């Protein structure tokens, strides 16, 4: 699975001598964030070889989508990365809008930015909670993280009807226009969020145990990250300035003032800090979006719900999901079903460098490194 020829860590033992202990970690190991298996070969406590095995949660997402209408695939996208259904909806809606040439009204663009950034907040905050849980901080940080996440999910429930499987976006806008009360509540939540982030940082940032467990662990060098196609906070933690919100400026992201935090060392601690800093930038985007949101329709009046038949052609829509570049590639041959429907999942592509990050470290470090990759098996296996 190695993305470049040379190993990062020099191996001393003979991998093929038959003297290594083979351990199958997962698929039901609680630290693998779902059903993910790693075939690890160990010399004592040192990892000599690591083979990720996925596919336990495969449910034929792409083929199901190719057999249904364009609209029917929308609720299935919720179940890809089930922590952030809003961004999945957006990526799919974006590529269908590109394919069919549907315009999105101004207000809908703002609503999309608001829900996407709220999704980023809740994803990052729960990721950090999970990472601490993997490290042995049993409960406390995760509970604090989930407490804040639940407040955001309550907002999603008021807006879309469910907490996680939102199914909120439609081609040409969003399904429900948020009420002024909802926007006021979102504004209040965003106003309180920096205080929580301060507390959360105070809780963990300088913790000596956290630092010794994460600094210098799971290092992902810049070149390898670029070569392997890693995206998102993982890539930025390795010091590469690449954020699709800035590079592609999809939607209306070019209107907002925000910075892209960059890491230096590419270790687990940098990946943790990147997410903390990204949440602060998301809060900034949210403040601007909630202040500037215009009045108007939340749905293109010309867009029809049923019977979408785009002209023959292809389109690739991509967004910066909380985990990295999430893209949907669609080919249409003029029928109501997509001819080809392909998802570019950030979780899976970020996972391919796992072996390179873990070699030469101990088993306990695998868990921490895997936790910092931020995978959701629904998206890895599809």
């Amino acid at each position, binding site marked *: 699975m190695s993305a470049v020829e040379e190993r990062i860590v020099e191996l001393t033992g003979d991998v093929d001598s038959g003297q290594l202990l083979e351990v199958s970690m997962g698929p039901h190991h609680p630290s693998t964030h779902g059903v993910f298996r790693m075939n690890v070969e160990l010399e004592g406590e040192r990892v000599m070889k690591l083979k990720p095995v996925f596919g336990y949660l495969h449910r034929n997402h792409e083929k199901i989508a190719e057999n249904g209408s364009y609209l*029917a695939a929308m609720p*299935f996208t919720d179940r890809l990365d089930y922590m952030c259904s809003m961004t999945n909806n957006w990526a799919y809606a974006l590529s269908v809008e590109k394919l069919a040439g549907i315009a999105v009204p101004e207000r809908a663009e703002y609503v999309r930015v608001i829900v996407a950034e709220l999704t980023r907040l809740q994803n990052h905050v729960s990721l950090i909670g999970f990472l601490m849980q993997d490290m042995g901080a049993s409960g*406390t940080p995760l509970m*604090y993280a989930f407490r804040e996440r639940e407040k955001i999910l309550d907002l999603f*429930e008021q807006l879309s009807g469910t907490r996680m499987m939102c199914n909120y976006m439609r081609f040409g806008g969003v399904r429900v226009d948020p009420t002024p009360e909802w926007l006021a509540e979102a504004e209040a939540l965003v106003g309180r969020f920096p205080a929580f982030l301060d507390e959360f940082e105070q809780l963990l940032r*300088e913790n*000596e145990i956290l630092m010794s467990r994460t600094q210098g662990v799971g290092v992902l060098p810049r070149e390898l990250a670029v070569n392997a196609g890693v995206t998102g906070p993982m890539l930025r933690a390795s010091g590469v300035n690449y954020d699709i919100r800035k590079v592609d400026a999809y939607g209306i992201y070019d209107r907002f003032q925000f910075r892209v935090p960059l890491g230096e060392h590419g270790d687990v601690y940098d990946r943790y800090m990147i997410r903390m800093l990204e949440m602060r930038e998301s809060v900034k985007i949210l403040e601007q979006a909630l202040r500037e949101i215009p009045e108007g329709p939340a749905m293109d009046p010309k867009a029809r*719900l049923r019977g979408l038949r785009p002209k023959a052609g292809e389109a690739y829509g991509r967004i910066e999901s909380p985990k990295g570049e999430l893209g949907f590639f669609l080919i249409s041959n003029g029928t109501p079903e997509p001819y080809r429907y392909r998802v570019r999942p950030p979780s899976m592509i970020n996972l391919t460098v796992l072996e390179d990050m873990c070699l030469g470290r101990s088993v306990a470090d695998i868990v921490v490194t895997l936790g910092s990759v931020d995978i959701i098996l629904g998206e890895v296996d599809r």
Partner: protein
Amino acid sequence: MLGEGIVKGLAETARNFFGSYAEKDRLTTVQFPEERLPQAEAARVFPFLVYDTDDMEKGLRCVACKICEVECPPKCITIEKSTEKKPDFTGKPQFFPEKFEIDVSVCMSCQICVEVCPFEAIKMDTAFELSTDDRFGGLHWPKERLAKPNEYYHQIHPMEAAAVDEQLAEKKAKAEEKHVPAAAQAEGAAAR
């Protein structure tokens, strides 16, 4: 100093612990079966069929057009159209579903059937305590179980139901307007 970070973190934990007695923001949980939070207006679980008046068979809004059956992403709806017609709320003769079944073990609560329905006949229910020990019959809901009166719809989604009622009243008024001149003409013809 070594351990300073840990002490700072513990101070934060203490603040949360004692704060949970004073601030509602820090203690958000409720003791579920006894205490319940109100459900959101938009909450959705499984679909149900709306009927007007007191008679389920007569008042069912569904006209068995099968749009929801076709559009349902996991294909959990089965509809059998009737052979004869019955009048709908405007008096126009329409087909009705002989059989309308939803397999709730397959349904994924996506609400697409509600969005595509042109007759406001299918809506989302908010009841969620639905466990059953019969995994075949208990999860395959027939028309009789799915049908709920319009008053129930008003109870669970008050704002949405009021808007729907207004729309339907408008439709009915329009249909009657069309109907009345036609009836008057027919009467005139009979008189002649």
